[in-house]
């Protein structure tokens, strides 16, 4: 076993943490009234929305759900930059006990195209409350299948989550 000191530290040795710390904000409601616009790109799929969904949660302030759309529209090229907002978004919904919202998000995540890092982050972040999420296991099973189809080591990446 080799232990390195800091003099061996370089960009290649570490995983970068991408994405700044987002600030939850409520967009001007004029945007809410604007019709949604989609931007087609990539392989013909819709990759973005120009309005921000504000979700009113029972007993709480409205929260910005923009991260959900970013996650759904993600791919491996842009996923790392969206990790922190996604994890924070998941954590917020867990704190609000918005389990039906999380379940809906799971069903919306395209496991075949979304960023592998975001898929993994979503699965891991929601792991502790999985018994409250009826769509968690189906989601993770889809992620497993998608990882295998992509040639990734699904067993290693999802170790501890299934069975």
């Amino acid at each position, binding site marked *: 076993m080799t232990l390195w000191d800091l003099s061996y530290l370089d960009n290649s040795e570490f995983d970068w943490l991408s994405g700044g710390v987002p600030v939850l904000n409520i967009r001007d409601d004029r945007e809410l009234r604007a019709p949604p616009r989609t931007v087609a790109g990539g392989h013909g799929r819709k990759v973005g929305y120009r309005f921000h969904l504000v979700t009113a949660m029972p007993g709480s302030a409205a929260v910005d759900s923009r991260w959900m759309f970013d996650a759904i529209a993600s791919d491996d090229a842009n996923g790392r930059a969206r990790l922190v907002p996604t994890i924070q978004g998941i*954590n917020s919904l867990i704190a609000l006990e918005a389990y039906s919202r999380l379940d809906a998000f799971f069903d919306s995540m395209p496991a075949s195209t979304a960023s592998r890092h975001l898929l993994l*982050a979503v699965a891991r972040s929601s792991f502790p409350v999985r018994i409250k999420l009826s769509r968690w296991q189906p989601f993770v099973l889809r992620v497993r299948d998608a990882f295998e189809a992509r040639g990734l080591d699904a067993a290693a990446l999802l170790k501890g989550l299934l069975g």
Partner: protein
Amino acid sequence: MGRHAGFLYRRDDGSVRVLHLAFHHSLRDDQADQWDATIRARFGADLRWADLGLPDDSRVVFAAHLSQLLLGNPQIPYGLDAGGTAFTPDGRFVRGPVGKGLTCATFIAAVLAGYGHPVVMDNWQPRPEDQAWGEQILAMLEGRASQEHIDAVRADIGASRYRPEEVVGAAVSPLPEWPLSFPDAIALAEQIVQELA
């Protein structure tokens, strides 16, 4: 006092940080080079690191998770027995009964376990030297923790101790070997201690 351990990770601003439980109610996210300089000056030791045994993609995600742990400003008690405590991925520390808490080593184990990656088993055996170490911790808690907490920690002296080098050895071993058993972790810890010598 011995060895100390934490998570070394890089943020998106390029800074390299050390996330570690320094002591009672003292979860710190230090700039790695500054912390390295500090411990060199104070203890004549330096910071050494090895890759966590997770796949590359998992480490990317885990680094993002680590950055969130401090947001809730968790007040983690230092304790010889972690019974009843847990760390959830949304940054919440679940306290156990009074006196229960984490060490730098069990902090690492708890964070990894909370993220679905248990790295050590719960079959650690008490060792004679754990008694003396517990007495030292108790002395250090004086003036830094409530009397209620100190009295409860005193009752845990002699509890099985997860040593930093044991948890680190487990955490840097390949993922298929997780969670490591007590004898396997001891063997890896001996290698680490030799490396640090």
